[in-house]
């Protein structure tokens, strides 16, 4: 997908290429950044190596579950990319996933709710949680990490109250179209992954071409200057957190679908770190003002590839943490070095 986009960067390419059209192409932010090419390269190398050492890796039986596991991380990562571009962060997505998942699971167990109803319920719950975060951060003007750290605990508390007992059992297969099974695939591609790609593509377009998207970059680059040029900073921030909340809702459905008929209290645990890792490895600056959805999707694929690869190689699974940790430090380190070099110049 990414390479195709690069060859036709501007929608108006049908016109004769005048000089201003050429400039229009160039004043556009680059469709794919250098870091994304590096990521693609790293992924290709990894996949080839894994293909050589574990012949089973490059088969549908291995790739399909990998893509299923990528889908919720990358999907929520799209929202997280918006947030981190504004120089914010949301560490409550793990707790929010847990709350969405348990509410939907319990509802499905007790009521015969159709697929569309379950998805809508999850998205509405997620949206509400995102709006809570967004309002507190944008209008309360408190640091995002503090607010979401607080709400993470509150969401977890609420989720555990809804759980009641330690597990929710006998979850019906309503959500199987997002699952690992045959019902979860179209032409061999997992539906959840395809849906994620469509949403990521829309988000990519919005960040690149819509003024609202560009304003997110402005806010993350210099919030004060953004205010001075008349950007409505607070509503924009609210939208970023609300969007993430809604995507958490859908992502929770993906996670429920890819699990068993039993939901336990570990759902969502640590997911916020996986999501943030995907965003950061994807080249979005933790300092705000720069980032891309494509990078986030690639970052999520990389993280899951490493996790799955370590398992398939029969290595101790904690090595996955080591590798992901190294990737994060390299990604953030190059970003900070870049920033320091620029400050000095």
């Amino acid at each position, binding site marked *: 997908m990414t390479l195709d986009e690069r060859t036709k960067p501007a929608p108006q390419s049908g016109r004769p290429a005048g000089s*201003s*059209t050429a*400039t*229009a192409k*160039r004043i556009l932010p680059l469709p794919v950044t250098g870091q994304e090419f590096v990521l693609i390269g790293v992924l290709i190398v990894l996949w080839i190596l894994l293909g050589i050492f574990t012949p089973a890796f490059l088969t549908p039986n291995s790739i399909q579950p990998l893509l299923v596991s990528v889908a919720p991380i990358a999907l929520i990562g799209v929202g997280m990319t918006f947030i981190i571009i504004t120089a914010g962060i949301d560490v409550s997505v793990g707790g929010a996933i847990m709350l969405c998942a348990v509410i939907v699971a319990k509802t499905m167990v007790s009521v015969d709710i159709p697929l569309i109803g379950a998805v809508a319920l999850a998205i509405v719950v997620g949206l509400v949680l995102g709006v809570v975060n967004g309002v507190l951060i944008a209008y309360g003007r408190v640091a995002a990490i503090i607010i979401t750290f607080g709400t993470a605990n509150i969401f977890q508390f609420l989720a555990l109250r809804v759980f009641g007992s330690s597990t929710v059992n006998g979850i019906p297969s309503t959500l199987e179209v997002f699952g690992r099974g045959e019902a979860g695939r179209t032409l061999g591609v997992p539906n959840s992954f395809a849906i994620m790609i469509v949403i990521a593509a829309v988000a990519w377009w919005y960040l690149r071409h819509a*003024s609202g998207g560009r304003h997110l970059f402005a806010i993350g*680059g210099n919030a004060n200057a953004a205010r001075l*040029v008349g*950007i409505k900073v607070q509503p924009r921030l609210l939208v970023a957190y609300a969007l993430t909340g809604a995507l958490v809702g859908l992502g929770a459905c993906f996670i429920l679908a890819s699990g068993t008929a039993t939901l336990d209290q570990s759902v969502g645990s640590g997911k916020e770190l996986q999501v943030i890792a995907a965003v950061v490895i994807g080249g979005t600056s933790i300092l705000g003002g720069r980032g891309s959805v494509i990078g986030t999707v690639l970052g999520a694929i990389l993280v899951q590839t490493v996790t799955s690869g370590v398992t398939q190689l029969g290595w101790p699974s904690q090595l996955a943490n080591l590798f992901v940790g190294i990737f994060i430090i390299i990604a953030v380190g190059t970003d900070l070095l870049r920033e320091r070099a*620029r400050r000095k110049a």
Partner: protein
Amino acid sequence: MSADTPVATATYRLELQDIVKSYGGVRAIRHADFALKPGTVHALVGENGAGKSTLIKIIAGAEIPDAGTIAFDGSAKTISSTSDSIALGVQTVYQEPQLFPELSVAENVFVGRELKKGGRVDWKAEADQIQGLLDTVGLPARIATVPVGTLSIAEQQQVSIAKALAGQASVLILDEPSAILTDSEIEVLFTVIRRLTATGVSVIYISHRLDELFVIADEVTVMRDGETITTRPIGELSVREIAELMVGGVLAEARPKGSGTSGETVLELLNLSRTGKFENVSLTVRSGEIVGLYGLVGSGAGDIAGVIYGMDKATSGTMRLSGSEVVVKRPSQAKRIGIRLLPANRSAQGSFSFQSISLNIVIGELGKLSRVPGWVSGRVQRDIARDFVKRLAVKTPSEKQPISAMSGGNAQKVVLARQLVQTPKLLVLAEPTQGVDVGAKEEIHRIISNLADDGSAVLVVTSDLGEVLRISDRILVIRAGEVAAEFTPQATQVEILAAAAGDQTTEELS
């Protein structure tokens, strides 16, 4: 802003009359009149605190005057917000560029007022417009695609001007644009300004560098103590006359003549340079002597203090302390060899806001306050703090108060006390009385003077003209990173200001 009655004979793009503005009980502007003709460059000058920034803020809509009238093109207007002001065609280019480092030049110019087609940004229309705008401000068209963060400060300023022009500026306020620019960059800026005025844009030009006004300005308005003193065509005045109007007839009482002339040399700088900041600075400070380093914003005087204390590295030259050569690599080393620095920015670099006065005083010497290494004795800490609170007349109910609860003057005394816990061999003070009330200023000056009398060498870096004359035994004027002139405290404010602002004749006289 309705029912405006245009006056056919209007000759002013912008006219302010009888403006008054107070903050709390402090009169920032006692009385100001200001009239800006179309297509001219109107310089606004005055010492720090004369009321220039307040006047500019009123025009930009960031402050609302208590009294007075504002008229655009002859019709009275009410400006109650920055957006009112922008709607009337006022655009401000601040000294620190307000830009988005990661976004391209083109995006920076249009952000907040994007050209749109359907729901999306019309990149082609922006590309069409950006060419002309960049051309006007003297930047090459190819720069449109470059992230602003990679540009030089001068180029960023040009982008800021392009941004102002994209906002249909008819009045452009430039707040000390030259302070951060090199000579050749200033030339470019002037070319841009002339191009703008030729198209009818009026420019309000604020600067401390008086010499350049004669190159670029048509008229000059001088402010002093919250009043506009006069507005004259620039050709009717000289640098010296403007300086005289700025300082008025105020005379400072200096330190007793002959103080601090006999001690041993403590600090000696020999051709010290830090590229881009200052060049070939040589100076000496003797024990018991107070040397005043006077420079306007951007002169490089503050950077010299930073290098002496090891916050920045010198690129060439040598520094000697009590005769032996030293290379100060970091502040902890400077401290060890007996140098102390009172930083210019008290809140950012000087105080630990939520901590008590006593901790703020002893924080730098914690390890040395007790016989047991690493052990901090509350009693010793308290005694030292109480001693300083008394000696420096810090007004506080208790040394346990957090420093954040104190007024500027008292907080500054606390930060100053920290430098005196171990009597420094060399004390460097940067803007020691900035944001400090008059009473506390007197007392801080007395403390500094006493310290020198007790044998410390003192270097005061300041942009406060009255201060440098009052407390110095010797005055060095820094201009454009070089020592431009040396004066005795018997010099007049006018002589010093003229040397700092670039009047060549004064330099030769000294």
